[in-house]
């Protein structure tokens, strides 16, 4: 499967990445090579191999429903670009 410029632009939009012309060029090549490698893997005969959902052989890992202390609010907000001491401040969201 060939990766086109349109594919890169679409993925960039979904990931909210702003790419320069040069970056779009080089990423189209890079992504094309990665997908090409996966295509190569697809040639392996997996008809009799059970699909797996996870790389480790673990299942049913649970924690008990017991409340533990949360972060103090100052710490939770500390890394935010903008806050008012109570909440994170963000530009208004359109279409809300």
């Amino acid at each position, binding site marked *: 499967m060939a990766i086109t410029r349109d594919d890169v632009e679409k993925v960039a939009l*979904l990931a909210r990445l702003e790419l320069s012309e040069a970056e779009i060029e080089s990423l189209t090549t890079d992504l094309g090579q990665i997908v090409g490698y996966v295509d190569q893997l697809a040639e392996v005969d997996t008809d009799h191999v059970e699909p797996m959902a996870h790389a480790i052989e673990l299942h*049913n*890992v649970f*924690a008990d429903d017991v*409340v533990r202390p949360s*972060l103090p*609010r100052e710490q939770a907000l500390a890394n935010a670009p903008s806050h008012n001491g109570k909440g994170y401040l963000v530009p208004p969201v359109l279409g809300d």
Partner: protein
Amino acid sequence: MSYTTVVGLEVHVQLATQSKLFCRCSTQFGAEPNTQTCPVCIGMPGSLPVMNREAYQLALKTSVAINCEIPAFTKWDRKQYFYPDLPKGYQISQFDLPMSEHGWLEISDPKDRFEPKRVRILRAHLEDDAGKSVHDEVHGRADSEIDLNRTGTPLLEIVSEPDMRSAAEAKAYMQELRLLLTHIGVSDCNMQEGSMRCDANVNLHIDTPDGKAATPIVEIKNMNSFRAVERAIEYEAGRQYRVWQETKQQMGDVPKQTRGWDDAAGKTLGQRSKEESSDYRYFPDPDLVPVLSTPEEVEAVRASLGDLPADIRRQLADDHGLSSYDADVLVNQGREVLAYFFNAAEKSGDYKAACNWVTQDIQRVLKEQEQSIDEFSISADQLADLISAIGDNRLPKSRSKDAFELMLTNEIDVAAAIEKLGIEQVDESALVTLCQELLDANPKIVADVKGGKQQAIGALIGQAKKKNSNVDPGQVRKMCLELVEKM
């Protein structure tokens, strides 16, 4: 030209856990903003989610109660989109292998406005909730304030098939779901607090001279009460019909539209669709491992559910002779009131009388006093005694409400209330003597009754009460008629 409204509902219910789905922050509603968060639920790098066992169990319990099949294997996936209230940049949800599918919920209308039917359930899956935006419009500030306390709260999304054919059916489905879920104790289903939320997919099937036409599907959001669900769907059906008459647009002609319900205006309004929002690029969450369940585990959950509201309604109607309307009203009072009712009904043996007291007088008092049934001062045993006292004529029916009020205000039992009311039991022989005296003194009345005018007895009842205030009017009437027969 006629049309049918077609409705499918996506309902999100918040599961009643103490802590969040993937971290141990509290889920308590109403806390100060951003005081219930931690590195896991605000998506700090390097943090690791671990699934809450209780959340999974409550989700499983719900899935079994809505008659879903439980696959042996389930897993969680990342659903990726950008939004300020979603700090991780993705929601942990379930994509291709949900924890339950192919269920159903039966709905009916006690007033018979629609036929009872099974609404099929496509799937129910467990996912985490997002935070909340608070818009500071009052101060005219440009920024929105984000509160992430709700982020990571466990939600079960229950997706129905488009099986409902009216706004009334959609409302009934929501109500039945809430009744069932509160009954089994998995959620408080409070729509105002957002612990039960609903989106509706609505379109019309219109009969035209060229066959059936289907209008484009519209998703309605922002309905915060059962009444809102009903009104929004009714409004939307009318709107789609008007648009169809103008444009003749059918499903597929335009992309799926999202509209928000404006409760004050009574309208659905078009919302700006999120760019490319349908492309969530799901993939299995590598931080979480799958969950396997055995048929034995599922059977154990099924056995733990006990009788569900639909079963109880059926028992009340079939085994205890209540009308389906009464049975519905009773079951809708909730589990605690139902337990109180069963105690009183079983002890007194009179289900109908217990139903009347519980759904009428007791409900009225609870409403007036803003009490729950646990706070109500007359116990189920005392109510049973009251019902028995009426049944065996220790308390005339005409004085039963007075006795009830006395029991309530003075916190006394029925025997004390009877004494306080000055009611002394009139024994059979005294009643016979009294009635015979009255009949002997009123030969004209006796003649009238013998001539077929039974209502003539009425004149004697007042006289009987004057002679003995404790006599029961009904008994006097009955006794007099019996004595006249023998005369």
